[in-house]
């Protein structure tokens, strides 16, 4: 249809324009705003490319959580006047950027014409063995579960790194009755939709990553409203929270070894149940990890607790 191609070209132009604005807007705050808008338009682009799983993830993580994290760190940074880069550096980076763009264009154009090739066929033929009816979930948690497990490990190591940074930033705490009311509406709805996305992942776009990100955004809302009445998360439960997903994933992956099968090769009749189990645990851990990324430090207020004298050189 004609009208759709016009809309698609407009979206493409908007993505490029917003990317430029996010890089070159005068003030840091404006750049962050443009980056959030950029994430939203990229999410729409994924939706137009019939990739709703990616669109969901991009909207929640790319625009929502990353936006919240950038805004949060804005409060703690000042606009530093930048020294203009030297002439040689500018020429060099322009040349490298040009080579990168040319290379990407050559790679992308070599993919055309796009058609449902062997990989798509392979997935749809063996769909029944995966235990779920949504092809993306089948690939992520069954056919290529290794990749997902390693992704979780990457997130876990990022979270461990953040835990070592020091205490998290304080919430600015708009303790207005209004935001309190908004949070009371939003938090239960966010928890509900996280559960919905998790359950839905077996047959439709959704899954542990999206659900975990929605849960993390509920934590962001709570942090922004500065709810002091919430119970403190102890060290032990924090560790449990972060580890339950990866540990359960590895444990379930190891079980088939007893039967003489390969790592992560689930028995066909149990696959659906096992995937739901892994995804539930992974959702909780992902939510914890992403919340830590947003907080940018240890949730314990005076971490590290047993620091003798921070000024003393070690």
């Amino acid at each position: 249809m004609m009208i759709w191609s016009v809309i698609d070209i407009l979206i493409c132009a908007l993505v490029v324009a917003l990317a430029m604005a996010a890089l070159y807007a005068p003030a840091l705050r404006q750049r962050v705003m443009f980056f959030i808008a950029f994430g939203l338009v990229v999410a729409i682009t994924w939706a137009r490319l019939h990739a709703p799983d990616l669109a969901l993830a991009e909207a929640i993580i790319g625009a929502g959580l990353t936006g919240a994290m950038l805004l949060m760190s804005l409060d703690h940074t000042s606009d530093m006047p930048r020294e203009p880069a030297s002439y040689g550096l500018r020429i060099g980076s322009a040349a490298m950027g040009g080579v990168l763009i040319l290379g990407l264009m050559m790679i992308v154009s070599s993919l055309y014409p796009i058609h449902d090739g062997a990989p798509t066929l392979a997935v749809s033929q063996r769909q029944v063995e995966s235990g779920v009816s949504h092809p993306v979930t089948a690939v992520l948690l069954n056919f290529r579960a290794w990749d997902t497990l390693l992704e979780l490990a990457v997130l876990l190591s990022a979270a461990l790194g953040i835990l070592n940074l020091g205490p998290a930033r304080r919430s600015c705490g708009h303790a207005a009755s209004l935001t309190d009311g908004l949070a009371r509406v939003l938090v239960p709805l966010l928890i509900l939709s996280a559960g919905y996305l998790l359950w839905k992942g077996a047959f439709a776009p959704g899954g542990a990553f999206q659900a975990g990100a929605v849960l993390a955004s509920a934590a962001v809302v709570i942090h922004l409203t500065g709810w002091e009445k919430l119970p403190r998360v102890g060290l032990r439960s924090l560790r449990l929270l972060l580890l339950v997903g990866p540990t359960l994933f590895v444990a379930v992956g190891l079980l088939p070894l007893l039967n003489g099968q390969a790592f992560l090769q689930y028995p066909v009749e149990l696959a659906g149940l096992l995937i739901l189990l892994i995804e539930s645990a992974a959702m909780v851990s992902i939510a914890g990890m992403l919340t830590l990324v947003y907080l940018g430090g240890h949730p314990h207020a005076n971490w590290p607790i047993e620091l003798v004298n921070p000024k003393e050189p070690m």
Partner: protein
Amino acid sequence: MNSLSELLSVAIVLLAVLVFVAGTVALIRLPDVLSRLHAISKIDNLGFGLLVLGLILIQPAWIDGVKLFGIWILVLVSSAATGQLIARHAVREEPR
């Protein structure tokens, strides 16, 4: 082909587009934060509400209409709250 509800839907969506355009122009042209905030909350409440109403009329399944209505309520709640927050911040910053 063109049933009454489809025609009505097109009319309402066009009205919504009008509100969006007017609100955007106001957002660019109006001088201070509070009046801009007024313009943008009109987009959220009225413009988006009309858009949702127009789209509800052409949904084949009634449950999709309910979902759209729910989205509108959520946008209303969040825009009311954030509008208040921005306004409060603007008033506090004003006498510099």
